[in-house]
């Protein structure tokens, strides 16, 4: 157990203390106790950053968990995990600080729940990014789904919250199961759960038939978690969560777990055409769909949710494009396609900063005005100047304007997309030109919704009559966190190379291992002015067309496109869910009729089907007359009488004859026992049959006059058919078994009993010796059965029905 192991576990352990703090220190906001933990983790993790140009050395420490199954809790810290862990703990600190002020004035809020869930989430997320073992990763992965659902449903008295929590849970857990199946396939191919060991065997895996299924299953997990098309529908509904949760989980961290997984497994699957097309294709589709849908939203958080979807698609498509780098040798740390990975890592970081701050800003607006509807908001610039400034920074960065960091990552994104068109692998020449076109269109829409969000909220006429609250600036404490994030947007926008070799390059090395020689590094130099090239022209085009579209916003507002706010895919989900439930109810209703006869029918049909299949399959049917005993005339008549009596039973319309017939059958069976030389059986059978007939008569005596004229059974041909086939199958099985036993030399073990009954047990009646000596345990338990039956009968008769027994 090393210090690194404590990082993901500490939040879980700390969560146990939260209810204590909440109960004992009611007057201090519980958030203050939580705040130090992510801060300490953040500061601790900072020491791993490679400063001064030294190459980053991954750290790996292992603690055995289920060693026999190859499941060890291995923490692997490299550039990629460090980037994520720093984001999680850093933004975690800011979010906790923000939440202290955000949920401050509601003393009746269950803060203990909130912080327990939040810490649980933080620990799970740190576990996901630090685990090297796939199973441990999966465990933490599901914990993030669980804690996310708990946080979305925080205000569980609201119906929309419960709907959102259920939806996100169903979608992400379905993906999680698919991912687990994918991990299992990876284990089958390699025999290890360790990510690093699996990556080392990537050549061998690529040749396996399980390669593509494993890839698709793992991607299903990543795509559902990271809200990729068409699984993105849970994210907008997750906006029912408190805003700090939306800022933390649904913009900066949890939705990036899928991105992390794709990046982490790029060395494994990357370089294959399927991976390239699936990841790039779904990424671009999500990018376009998200940005177009965001324009239709009227709720600020709705815009941000679809914006998040679209930006996640952007990062995902960049990871797909960058995987092409595995096809080409990297020369001097620079290649055409590693640029895409650079853009992905850089934008990942940028998105976390500006989207986090924007969510917090929206939270402030909601908190201070009482609404998030952009049709009611307006003219807040003068009223909330600080919030306005922070929004300006965040929105400009999101739209991709200089000098903010969003501009830089968008430029590199265009560069990566343009580079892909030169790729001659994977049949890119046919479809490749679409990639920069789609990217450009999506950027135009991104620009439009960014402007929409900004101008509708802060400019125009202030409409105090429409607002539930009197608008004013937020308290300082609430502004700290978004301000810090806004500051980061500016600082890393102006000095992007601060990050280049500390954060970005090590992360690139983790995503693209093995491409560089010993001691080499990727070339990372991010700068604002790189000449008047195609990328800059594209950005200028985005600004021009976007502005033109926004100026015609009034016209857009009239269209049906704008009015239909809900994502059309929600219909598919809702109908699918209700269809599943009603379908299950229908199947249940058809099958579970509550009638005993139907259930018996299922069983008999199944029995006949299985037995006849087995008989036909093994070609077992045989009949053997050779080795049979002689038929004595008596026996012939007894069997004939038995058959006739049996066949007559169903035809009895009165009950007393039926009982008498059954009695006759029993006595005939006793006679058969006599003939086949089983005296004890015959004796028992006679006695039992007598008592049974008496019992039957007793019961009939107590039966009412009501239906004393016994029923004429409804003659069902199907019943007849089923019973005939049961009889036929039993007969054929019996005949075959008989033929088989005589065709093979199977000597009975009874010779032992015959020889030793007297010698060992001192008895001459072999059957009785077996019953009480050789196999006495059976007899003991049989006695118990009789005892229990006797008790049961007594209880049934003595017990008087109470009124509640009415059915």
């Amino acid at each position, binding site marked *: 157990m090393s210090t690194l192991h404590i990082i993901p576990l500490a939040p879980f352990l700390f969560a146990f203390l939260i209810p204590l703090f909440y109960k004992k220190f009611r007057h201090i906001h519980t958030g203050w106790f939580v705040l130090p933990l992510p801060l300490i983790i953040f500061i601790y993790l900072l020491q791993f950053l490679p400063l001064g140009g030294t190459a980053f050395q991954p750290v790996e420490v292992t603690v055995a968990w289920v060693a026999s199954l190859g499941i060890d809790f291995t923490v692997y810290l490299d550039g990629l995990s460090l980037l994520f862990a720093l984001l999680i703990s850093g933004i975690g600190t800011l979010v906790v600080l923000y939440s202290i002020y955000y949920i401050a004035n509601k003393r009746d809020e269950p803060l203990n729940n909130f912080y327990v869930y939040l810490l649980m989430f933080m620990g799970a997320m740190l576990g996901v990014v630090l685990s090297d073992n796939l199973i441990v990763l999966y465990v933490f992965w599901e914990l993030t789904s669980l804690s996310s659902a708990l946080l979305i449903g925080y205000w569980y008295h609201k119906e929309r919250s419960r709907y959102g929590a259920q939806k996100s849970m169903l979608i992400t857990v379905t993906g999680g199961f698919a991912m687990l199946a994918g991990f299992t396939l990876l284990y089958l191919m390699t025999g290890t759960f360790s990510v690093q060991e699996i990556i080392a065997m990537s050549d061998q895996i690529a040749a396996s038939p399980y390669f593509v299924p494993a890839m698709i299953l793992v991607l299903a997990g990543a795509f559902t978690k990271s809200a990729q098309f068409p699984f993105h529908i849970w994210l907008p509904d997750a906006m029912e969560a408190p805003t700090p949760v939306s800022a933390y989980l649904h913009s900066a961290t949890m939705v990036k777990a899928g991105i992390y997984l794709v990046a982490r497994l790029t060395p494994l699957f990357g370089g294959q055409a399927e991976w390239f097309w699936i990841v790039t294709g779904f990424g671009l589709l999500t990018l376009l769909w998200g940005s177009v849908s965001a324009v239709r939203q009227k709720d600020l958080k709705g815009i941000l949710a679809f914006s998040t979807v679209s930006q996640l698609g952007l990062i995902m498509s960049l990871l797909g494009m960058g995987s092409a780098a595995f096809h080409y040798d990297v020369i001097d740390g620079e290649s055409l396609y590693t640029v895409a990975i650079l853009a992905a890592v850089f934008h990942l970081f940028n998105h976390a900063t500006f989207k986090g701050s924007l969510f917090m800003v929206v939270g402030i607006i909601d908190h201070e005005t009482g609404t998030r509807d952009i049709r009611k908001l307006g003219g807040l610039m003068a009223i909330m100047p600080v919030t306005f400034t922070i929004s300006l920074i965040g929105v400009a960065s999101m739209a991709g304007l200089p000098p903010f960091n969003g501009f830089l990552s968008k430029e590199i994104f265009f560069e990566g997309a343009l580079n892909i068109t030169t790729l001659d692998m994977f049949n890119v020449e046919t479809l490749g030109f679409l990639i920069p076109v789609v990217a450009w269109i999506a950027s135009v829409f991104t620009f439009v919704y960014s402007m929409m969000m900004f101008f509708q909220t802060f400019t125009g006429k202030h409409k105090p009559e429409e607002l539930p609250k009197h608008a004013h600036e937020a308290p300082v404490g609430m502004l700290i966190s978004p301000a810090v994030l806004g500051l980061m947007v500016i600082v890393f926008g102006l000095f992007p190379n601060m990050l280049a070799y500390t954060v970005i390059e090590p992360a690139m090395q983790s995503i693209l291992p093995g491409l560089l020689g010993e001691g080499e590094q990727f070339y990372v130099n991010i700068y604002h002015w790189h000449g008047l090239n195609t990328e800059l022209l594209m950005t200028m085009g985005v600004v021009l067309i976007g502005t033109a579209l926004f100026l015609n916003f009034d016209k857009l507002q009239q269209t049906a496109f704008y009015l239909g706010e809900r994502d059309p895919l929600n219909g598919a989900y809702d109908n699918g869910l209700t269809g599943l439930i009603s379908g299950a109810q229908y199947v249940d209703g058809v099958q579970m009729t509550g009638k005993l006869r139907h259930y018996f029918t299922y069983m*008999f049909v199944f029995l006949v089907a299985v037995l006849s299949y087995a008989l036909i399959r093994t070609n077992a049917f045989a009949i053997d007359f050779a080795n049979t005993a002689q038929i004595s005339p008596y026996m012939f008549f007894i069997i004939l009488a*038995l058959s006739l009596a*049996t066949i007559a039973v169903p035809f009895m319309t009165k009950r007393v004859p039926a009982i008498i017939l059954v009695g006759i059958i029993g006595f005939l069976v006793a006679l058969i026992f006599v003939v086949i030389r089983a005296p004890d*059986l015959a004796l028992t059978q006679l006695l039992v049959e007598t008592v049974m007939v008496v019992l039957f008569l007793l019961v009939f005596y107590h039966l009412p006059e009501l239906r004393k004229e016994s029923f004429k059974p409804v003659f069902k041909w199907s019943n007849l058919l089923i*019973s005939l086939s049961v009889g036929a199958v039993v007969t054929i099985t019996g005949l075959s078994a*008989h033929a088989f036993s005589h065709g093979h030399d199977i000597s*009975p073990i009874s010779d032992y009993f015959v020889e030793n009954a007297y010698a060992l047990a001192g008895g001459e009646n*072999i059957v009785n010796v077996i019953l009480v000596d050789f196999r006495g345990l059976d007899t003991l338990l049989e006695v118990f059965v009789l005892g229990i039956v006797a008790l049961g009968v007594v209880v049934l008769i003595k017990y008087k029905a109470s009124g509640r027994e009415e059915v």
Partner: protein
Amino acid sequence: MEVLMIFAIGILFTVSTYLILTKSLLRVVLGVLILSHGAHLLFLTLSGLKTGAPPLLGEEAGSYTDPLPQALVLTAIVIGFGITAFMLVLAYRTYKVHETDNFDELRGSDDD
């Protein structure tokens, strides 16, 4: 003789299946009783019906019939008797409480 017995046993199974599929409580009980007869006979038949002395050592015979199936069937008869007796009392009791012996009417209401 075994082949003849097996056909008779097939008839026992057919009739008992038919009775079990009917609606009346007591017919089902009769069906179960006949089914147990069929099972006992099938057991003895498949272990061989070859002639020999009854399994009593005092007979001083050269060969005996197989005693083990007889012991097993004896146990089965007793248990079958216990179960049938219990079922009968249960049927009686069911009739007392619900005043019907028709399975289609013994379905409970939708809310339980």
